[in-house]
């Protein structure tokens, strides 16, 4: 049974059809990659998942709830976390506070006027945050200002922040874009280990095929607004339609 179900989604901007009858079914516990050349409609699709755009027709259901027209924090409350193309972290806070905030958000919900207790009195939160930092190997940097970290570390921190909420679905938007080779590989390893340990469902939007082949259990290929192929990585590799889509781009 899929946890995120996208059915017959259409979206056009003016005359331009960005998404055309998109159907997706992301299964629980798997890493599902959505790839496609530039302009295939990946970002539009992602924005439909997170409530930024409302499709003209069709539904996006997550765990029995529609994701259409609701606000980011509500989507998160349903169990969806998101990793951005450039890491979105609280750069003026310490690494430690960065990890604490999602823990509190998970416990206290969208708004709690928790103004008189001390952050440091919440031992259970601290434990959780610490565990997360250990998991992503950032525990020795916990007192650093987040903005002073390397890009790779920022990515790990962001990942840790998302994971500490134990999401049912983790959306990753080109998680390795702009990274050096080594960082990319370590990120892939990180994702793999997380998958292994926590069994979290992940949806990865990616431009670069090579990133996802070793990672994803299932790949959907998006081209010109439609899903052209959906299969396991091995089968995608040599698929003529995929070749055509990507080569077409290369020729341009």
């Amino acid at each position, binding site marked *: 049974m899929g946890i995120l179900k996208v059915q017959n989604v259409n979206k056009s901007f003016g005359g331009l059809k960005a998404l055309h009858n998109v159907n997706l079914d992301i299964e629980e516990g798997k890493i599902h990659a959505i790839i496609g050349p530039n302009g295939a409609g990946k970002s539009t699709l992602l924005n439909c998942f*997170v409530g930024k755009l409302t499709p003209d027709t069709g539904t996006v259901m997550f765990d029995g709830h529609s994701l259409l027209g609701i606000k980011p924090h509500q989507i998160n409350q349903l169990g969806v976390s998101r990793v951005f193309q450039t890491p979105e972290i609280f750069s003026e806070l310490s690494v430690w506070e960065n990890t604490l905030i999602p823990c509190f958000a998970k416990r206290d919900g*969208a708004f709690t006027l928790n103004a008189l207790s001390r952050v440091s009195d919440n031992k259970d939160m601290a434990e959780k945050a610490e565990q997360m930092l250990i998991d992503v190997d950032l525990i020795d940097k916990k007192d650093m200002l987040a903005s002073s970290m390397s890009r790779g570390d920022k990515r790990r921190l962001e990942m840790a922040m998302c994971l500490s909420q134990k999401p049912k679905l983790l959306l990753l938007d080109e998680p390795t874009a702009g990274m050096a080779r080594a960082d990319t590989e370590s990120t892939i390893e990180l994702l793999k280990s997380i998958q292994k340990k926590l069994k979290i469902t992940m949806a990865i939007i990616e431009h670069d095929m090579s990133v996802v082949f070793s990672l994803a259990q299932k790949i959907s290929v998006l081209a010109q607004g439609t899903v052209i192929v959906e299969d396991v990585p091995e089968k995608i590799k040599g698929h003529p339609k995929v070749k055509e889509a990507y080569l077409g781009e290369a020729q341009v």
Partner: protein
Amino acid sequence: MKTISKADMRTLFFVAIIALFAPLILNPFPTESGWAQFNAGYPDLMQRFAIYGILAIGFNILFGLTGYLSFGHAAFLGVGSYSAVWMFKLLSMNIIPALILSVIVAGLFSLLIGFISLRRSGIYFSILTLAFAQMSFALAYSVLTPLTNGETGLQITLNDPRIFAAENISGNLPVTSLFGMEMRDTWTMQLGAWDFQFNIGYYICAIFLLLAFYISIRIFRSPFGMMLRAIKTNQTRLNYTGINTRPYTLAAFVISGMYAGLAGGLMASMDPLAGAERMQWTASGEIVLMTILGGTGTLLGPVMGAGFIKYFENIFSKINDTVLHGWFSWMPDGLENVIVWILHLFTGKGWHLTLGIMFMMIVIFLPGGLMEGISRIGKWWKRRNVKNDNTSHNSSTPAQ
């Protein structure tokens, strides 16, 4: 259960000691000496230090933590003052009901304004708050005169009902009090050439300042405070972390509005008059300047910024040419006149010039405000001490 950390407790204790001994600390010069001009230890100014301190602490909870720059905070101060004076007119001269009402009214008013203004962020938010405050000012000055007494400011009069007060037979205006303790009561302690004034009103203000400071520490260290700081640095991430930022900012806005209301109420309690100018944009701007000057987002900075501006306003504006001549009368006449002529540009009617220059100096050389100055001095002191330790070691080694 321990509510604040040791370091914070030390800060609080430090502030408490300063507040307790302010009448002594602020009066370093003998009353009859020429330097007495720089003494700030008289009730009115000390009360102002405490009250504007409260105001700036409250403003800092909004601006320092969330980064939302309200340019209309003076409106809440004004509303607080008006409510307090009305309580003095209608109920009694006891300050407790007045303070309660001023906090409540300012809270409700800020809830309304905040609810609307927080739909926008950045400068759009600032201008919305500014617009509301300027509207309040304009109306308070003119149309709402029956409620605010317009230009003159709302005052107590002999004819007020004051239903809970005993009948006034003295023919004099009643004075504000706390269960019989009159706010204006002052014990003057003469100690040698010094006169120290211990004023009840000031100590009431100081107690509220400490309370306000304590609550602000708690808020800074709480998960709520952490969320507010997170809002300042990255709202997108916070939204995708499941936090609805609007109620957080609104709560911060209302809390700081209530602080402003308390400050307004206290101001009226110390001096039962509420003037419309309290709500003007210049007054709002002053609050912003106090906070930035002291150090935005720091605990103690805003209080220092408030003290700094009020000191200049009240002390420098009173240094006139005669005073200057008095100071430099030991110089040869020509030189004395030149010095006085130069200095008189900066004192008396020129006090604004000094203030403007100080603003520029501080922001140019101390980007983090006065607090940065203090921490730099602290670091320098530490380094110096370390060096001294080393040198003493060095000097003692040869002897061994």
